[in-house]
């Protein structure tokens, strides 16, 4: 049912797109044909919860070192002082760690939300924040399905803080600090395509060690951060109610109709105006 309506919206939208040539809204990439984005694969079966990723991340980006350790039953959160955290979950297969940071979505809600292009999906894959453009409206925070962007509420020159996959290091030909320093090799950096292949292989080779899913393969239309884990996502702190389509598509229907409204409504209004020109209603007449 939802599909029918969406199709209708799209049909309506198509009129709009044809009317507004050069519209920058582009169709979602067909699954399996993703561009060669870089991504990160995190393997919960390897992670030992040593917090090295947290510590090197803090060092690399100039934040204070973490003061608390992963504890089962406590959800530690990223903040304006911390771009990544590792949490511990008690699951049906014992203790499982899950690292949390920006997911670097293929089609990020934060980027679609941003009206200044401060949030930006680079061609390499990382989603970065550019302070010289941002006006601090926090619409990216409202829109991100993972609640990733954080805001410096107590600054007169506040920044949006979130993981940027160490974009500066990637440009220098290095890999993200967490991936480089993880002693357990739980964090692998590579192209998204390779990482998915690698994840499939791990699941295939050791079916009794891994649960059969790759978190981030389809969620929110695919993310750059991918996860494999010994337990189903619901047990180790993942959001499981998210859509498998890209979040920007939720508001695309609305945006597609805008050009048609701009063409049709004025014509319509002008038409009525001309048609009613000669009947000036007066008191007592209720012809709205």
């Amino acid at each position, binding site marked *: 049912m939802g599909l029918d309506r969406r199709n209708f919206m799209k049909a309506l939208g198509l009129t709009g797109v044809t009317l507004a040539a050069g519209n920058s809204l582009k169709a979602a990439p067909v699954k399996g044909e993703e561009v060669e984005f870089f991504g990160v694969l995190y393997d919960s079966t390897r992670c030992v919860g040593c917090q090295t990723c947290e510590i090197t991340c803090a060092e690399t980006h100039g934040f204070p070192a973490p003061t608390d350790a992963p504890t089962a039953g406590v959800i530690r959160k990223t903040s304006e002082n911390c771009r990544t955290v590792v949490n511990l979950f008690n699951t049906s297969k014992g203790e499982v760690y899950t690292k949390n940071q920006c997911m670097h979505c293929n089609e990020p809600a934060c980027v679609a939300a941003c009206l200044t292009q401060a949030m930006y999906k680079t061609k390499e894959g990382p989603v970065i924040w550019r302070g010289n453009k941002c*006006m601090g409206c926090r619409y990216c925070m409202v829109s991100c399905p993972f609640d990733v962007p954080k805001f410096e509420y107590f600054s007169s020159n506040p920044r949006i803080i979130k993981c940027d996959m160490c974009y500066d290091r990637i440009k220098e030909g290095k890999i993200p600090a967490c991936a480089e320093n993880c002693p357990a090799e739980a964090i692998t950096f590579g192209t998204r395509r390779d990482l998915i292949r690698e994840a499939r292989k791990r699941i295939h080779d050791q079916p009794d060690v891994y649960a059969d899913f790759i978190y981030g393969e389809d969620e929110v239309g695919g993310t750059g951060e991918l996860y494999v884990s010994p337990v189903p996502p619901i047990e180790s702190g993942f959001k499981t109610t998210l859509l498998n389509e890209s979040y920007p598509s939720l508001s695309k229907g609305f945006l597609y109709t805008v050009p048609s409204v701009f063409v049709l409504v004025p014509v319509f209004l002008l038409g009525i105006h001309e048609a009613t020109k000669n009947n000036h209603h007066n008191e007592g007449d209720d012809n709205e």
Partner: protein
Amino acid sequence: MKETTMSNHAIPVAKDNDGKNIWKFLVSEFKPKGKIFTPFNIISAPIILLGIVLIVIRFWKGIGSVTNLTQEVPWGLWIGFDVVTGVAFAGGAYVITFMVYILNNRKYHSIVRVTVLNGFLAYVFYAGALLLDLGRPWNVVNPIIGNSFGTNSVLFLVAWHFLLYMLAELIEFSPAIAEWLGAKRARKILSGMTIAAVIFGITLSTLHQSGLGALFLMARDKIHPLWYSEFIPVMFLVSSIFAGLSMVIFEGSISSRVFSSQISEKHHGEHNNIVISLSRICAGAMLAYFFLNVLVFIHDRHWDLLNTPMGYWYLLEMIGFVLVPMMLFFYSYRRKSLNLIKVAAIITMLGVILNRLNVTVIGFKWEEAVRYVPSWMELVITLTVIFTEIWIFRWVVRRMPVLRDSPLWAKDEK
């Protein structure tokens, strides 16, 4: 007016009607008119002063120093009430201009100006309140001057529409300014632009009233399912009709008392008639709105959610603040009871506030253990915005022909 007499003036705006110096006129106009120590002034002045102090603190120490916003709830009272609700209440302007200029229904003509003025100021102040909420307001020009167009962003659309709509409303209102200044030629040119501005303004309104709802479409997982649907934009648009008209009714009943000296006998009588017909439109729009809500509810099948605290809250909104005032509007329209209409308008307005806050604040992250509740400082700043708007409104109404009739020379031109 004959063109020949006008063309003698080199700069028509520099002289007023009687050829007096315009600057002296302006200076005299800036002096306060009316009593200074009214109850409203005594209450609002200290709040405005306090609000200004708080705004300074906000820019100096950061948004967190005056608000209770959190990383999970980044938009609070300022967006949810000032911007989203304020703009809904400003919807009266596009509805009334639609009826007067598009349907050529002259009956509502006497309230066009005051409604447009109200709408314009609402946009300036409530949409302007957005600036207080921006962490990095110095970059606000980025999406405007075009070096960074986030054209896929609903907020981009809404921001642009705010700007353009303010312009459209300013044009619609400008003949009143010209009449005040006695600028005859300017008035002629400006009133010639009214229809175009109205058409443009209505188009913009349909898009940004719904756009304010569309802002929340990507927050699908954060808004309580009873308030989230892909139809939020439609809901916001339809409810802006009765939100705006209820505001018109409410504002009219206050203005007619406060500014009674400005309103001629004839208009006074007309006004009652207008209010009665507006109540019928309100009731109709609310019926459509209620029906839409029922359809969406049935479609999304959230029956199980009704029997939860949020469900009761939803029912309260839908029945107590939509169905009840709707029936009250119908009833009072039949009975031609102005007092009941006012009551219905007030309940409707409360309902719109409730609805907008439910989508943007109350139903947002409703499961979060620590809920966002606005701080007293956020409230004071919100009141500051509202009171300042009323001050400006009053200043304009006392000077320009908004409620009172246009000067005779302007009437000749019709």
